[in-house]
């Protein structure tokens, strides 16, 4: 800091020289967005952090130091919820990243009924969570559900998808993938169509097979899309609770509780201070996992 100031004083001429980047990409372009985001999201969110240190009923708040955090870490099923959160995030984002890419490659290749298929894949994204929840609760019914009835036809005794304690979380994860893969696919499609056609033409002349084209052109060039899908679905997976809430409410018992649903339950119960503390903990957890990931991915994008 001191050095910079000294430098500016010693070289008054330098301060006149405009930063080229600054004039090409002036910071005022960020102002409208920064104003909306800063005022309506960051400011209230940061002020709310204070409430994590209070017993807060919305009507009154009483400062209680770190009691909420202590209480939060004493949640009886917190450890299990933590494990569930990480499992859920990895399973869903992993599947979305891979299946989304597969579907996108398929849906950008010349297929009959391509538009129809794109719509079909995207359709689940449009259906409200409530609808998805009810639909799959019914389809996954252990005895009368279509899924197990179909499995029974080929001689498999289907599991109790949502009612088995060891399976419920994974079942919800599968439904989340079903619901979210369309989004990943659309992002991937945007990435794939952004790849100049020349590359494919050149590689075709070079005699590349479809797999080689995928491996050496699509895969490296679709990276920005892939990183977007990774980061969005991973953070989304860590924070998801709405689908869990509509499908299992964290059950049976507490077996499919994740951090976000634990926090949400506290919020629903009116434990506002405690749930704010829980959000802070969840935020730290996500930040610890996602920020390094994001930095890593960003570096890869920039050095492209």
């Amino acid at each position, binding site marked *: 800091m001191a050095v910079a100031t000294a430098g500016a004083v010693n070289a008054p001429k330098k301060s006149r020289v405009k930063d080229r980047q600054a004039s090409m990409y002036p910071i005022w372009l960020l102002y409208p967005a920064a104003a909306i985001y800063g005022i309506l999201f960051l400011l209230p969110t940061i002020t709310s952090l204070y409430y994590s240190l209070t017993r807060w009923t*919305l*009507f009154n708040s009483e400062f209680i130091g770190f*009691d909420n955090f202590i*209480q939060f870490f004493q949640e009886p099923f917190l450890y299990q919820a933590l494990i569930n959160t990480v499992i859920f995030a990895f399973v869903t984002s992993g599947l979305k990243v891979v299946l989304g890419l597969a579907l996108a490659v398929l849906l950008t290749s010349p297929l009959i009924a391509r538009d129809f298929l794109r719509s079909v894949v995207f359709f689940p994204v449009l259906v409200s969570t409530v609808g998805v929840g009810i639909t799959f609760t019914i389809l996954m019914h252990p005895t009368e559900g279509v899924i197990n009835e179909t499995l029974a036809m080929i001689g498999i005794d289907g599991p109790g998808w949502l*009612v088995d304690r060891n399976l419920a979380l994974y079942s919800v994860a599968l439904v989340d993938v079903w619901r979210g893969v369309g989004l990943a696919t659309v992002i991937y499609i945007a990435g794939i169509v952004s790849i100049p056609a020349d590359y494919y033409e050149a590689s075709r002349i070079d005699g590349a097979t479809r797999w080689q084209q995928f491996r050496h052109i699509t895969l490296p060039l679709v990276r920005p899309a892939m990183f977007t899908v990774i980061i969005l679905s991973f953070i989304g997976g860590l924070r998801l609770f709405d689908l869990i809430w509509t499908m299992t409410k964290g059950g049976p*018992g*507490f077996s499919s509780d994740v951090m976000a649903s634990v926090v949400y*339950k506290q919020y629903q119960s*009116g*434990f506002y201070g405690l749930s704010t503390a829980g959000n802070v903990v969840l935020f730290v957890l996500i930040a610890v996992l996602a920020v390094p990931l994001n930095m890593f991915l960003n570096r890869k994008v920039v050095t492209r």
Partner: protein
Amino acid sequence: MMLKKLNATLAMGGATALALSLAAPAYAQDQVELTWLVDNGPSTVDIAEALVAAYEEKNPNVSIELEIRPGGGEGDNIVKTRLATGEMTDIFVYNSGSLLQAIAPQQTLMPLTDQPFMDNVQEAFQSVVSTDGEVFGVPYGAAQGGGILYNSAIYEELGLEVPQTWDAFMENNSAIDEAGYIPVIQTFRESWTSQIFVLADFYNVLQAEPDFAERYTNNEAKYATSEAAQKGFERLAAIHEAGYTNEDFNALGYQEGLEMLANKEGAHYPMITFAIPSLETNYPDQVDDIGFFALPGDDADSNGLTTWMPAGVYVPQTTSNPEVAMDFLGFIASVEGCEAMIDAVGANGPYLIEGCGLPDDVVPAVRDMLPYFEEGRVEPALEFLSPIKGPALEQITVEVGSGFRDPASAAELYDQDVRKQAQQLGLEGW
């Protein structure tokens, strides 16, 4: 503005009559618009629409607009948020009992203590909408009972009697089981339905420990250490162990539970009586075969019903027109208002308004419930006597009812949950 008006009134020599006569034309002539926030619970909207229609007919210059909110925890949050930010509608419906305390009634609501229409409201209800000597709400709908809805056709077929004790109930179950019917329907996909054995057992708890609620609030009585209180969990476990439930208990929901009961697949469905209107609508032909009895305890002599008070209608301090809002509350608490409600959704329990009787043609399940009230064999559920209700109860009861957790550890876990709630409420002694 308010202050000025008040001063003016005082300057006129405290002539209340004059003030009223000034105020009355003010809304008799002008068009008054009120907003009313109601939840989307069973028949809540129907009741609200009926009340509004009846009131607007009487007062053509008033129009009341309904706004719907979700129920449950999300709905509670909306009510709290809107009250805390001063954005509540002119009138709103909200829970009575423990949950009412969470919206800081003294800070946010207009007291009704001195309103003449409160004389119409039965004491049983007034007590669950009061804090520090002030009353805040009028009843919205009828009182409910928690117990067992049963299929009387099965009872008739097997020659069974309504059980007065738990043992008798289990014997009935055994007979029903042998006859090939499902003795007890459980529907844990909607986990709230799993709590009835614990919650509706509270009448029996009070028989054994009359001061349980008070000691529980004061951090003295615990589910884990009270034999009577733990029985709810034990009975839930016993039903599962005996294999009396439907096999797909963990995959079914509430509607399917009602369907099984109506279609004579299952004999008992532990439930609160607010299910009755739904049965009437969906199974008009079978509803006459559905009866109701209180959750039996150990002793036939002290058999009684745990009751749920209806929600209340409240006026926030931020209301745009207190006079008209009060007038409307007075209407709800009148026999006229009560009858409008009965017309709308039928009579599925005693309305807590003086002089508002039930018609004679109520369905059997309601008829079965009424004697408990008439004979005074009722106690309110714990949530109406104590501000503390642990939020995780339904998940714990699912675990017990599915056989994952034994009753003792469930009781302990629930005590832990209760402690969290009490601490969050900032109660003394926790």
